[in-house]
């Protein structure tokens, strides 16, 4: 058999769009509280905050309504419903927030490069090579 038979997939690093990852730095008031609550939500498979994974794209609070825009690492993510529900519940813990909605975005596409340095450190501790 030729060596081609043992070809492997090369996972190239994606590019990081400017202003990503978003971590809530500089957020104030209820928005800061939502970011803090989202920090407590971990990926279902790895003990890393979804904020450090770079999955949260935007948080806004308008009156008593919070909106979170987030992405998924993978389109086939079987934990989509569970994760969006965790995010919604986390957003509801901020003071004054009565309603929370979560929308999934795929642009810009997520890549490992969007993980924060702290997140990468935790992934390494977990045993992943990043």
């Amino acid at each position, binding site marked *: *058999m*030729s060596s081609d038979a043992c*070809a492997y*997939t090369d996972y190239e690093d*994606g590019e990081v769009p400017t202003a990503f990852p978003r971590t809530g730095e500089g957020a104030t008031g209820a928005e800061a509280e939502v970011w803090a609550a989202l920090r407590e939500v971990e990926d279902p498979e790895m003990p890393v905050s979804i904020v450090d994974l770079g999955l949260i794209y935007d948080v806004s609070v308008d009156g008593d309504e919070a909106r979170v825009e987030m992405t998924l690492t993978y389109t*086939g993510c079987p934990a989509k419903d569970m994760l969006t529900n965790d995010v919604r519940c986390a957003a509801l813990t901020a003071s004054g927030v009565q309603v929370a909605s979560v929308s999934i975005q795929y*642009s810009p596409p997520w890549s490992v490069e969007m993980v924060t340095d702290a997140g990468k450190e935790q992934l390494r501790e977990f045993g992943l090579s990043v």
Partner: protein
Amino acid sequence: MEPAEAELFRLADDEYVLAERYTEWQIYAPTPESDLALANIAQDEFGHARLWYDLLEEEYGYDEPDLLWERDPADFVHSTLVELETPEGDWADTVVRGYLYDAAERLRLEALEDSSFEPIADRVPKVQGEEEYHREHAQSWLDRLTDSADSRERVQAAVDQLFPHAMTLFAPTVDEDEILDAGVRSRSLADLREDWLDEVVPYLDSLGVAVPDPEDVVRPEPLGRDGSHTDDWFDLHDEFTASYRELGFDEPAELRGENA
């Protein structure tokens, strides 16, 4: 139907039905590695189907039973290529099917990168990123399968059987003109088909596999895109909706032993 809605059905149905056929290999694929690889590809395709079905829900008000569980099988618009039953144990069939499909899928997605319907354009890069591996997988298997005469014959038989059905990937739905006019897709099916032929014919040829002349190919009567399908589809639809029907959502729940 809105043009973007029509294109979403083409995209979603193709991916969903292809994934259904892939999953039939689970625990039966030739090696544990190929089993895992195909299961992973199936999960990707289900994920992509969900991306497109989600948009149909968000933008056009459908719900999941409308789109899958309670939809008339004659309203599905996937290509007949993806619905055909895999001949028992015929790995070459699945490899060839995946190859022909994935080559067309890349071209179609490229033609959607600048879609006038932004939610589609937004999702394309993520999907393209996940599709690359599918083509690599199919081609590495084709290279191996055409390495010996016996298995090359199987590949040839699969190409002979599947090629006419692959042509239906480029068959129009009734909404095709509107899809182009509205700029939902930037290239016509005829253009995509030409690029696809320019890619797959020389490649298969280089492996010693002959591709029928597209002009001489007898098109299958059901085209898929117009809702006409082979019997294989109606059987598959019956199978994947069986659990949903058995759950009997329209019946009130009964306690076990009630009315016993």
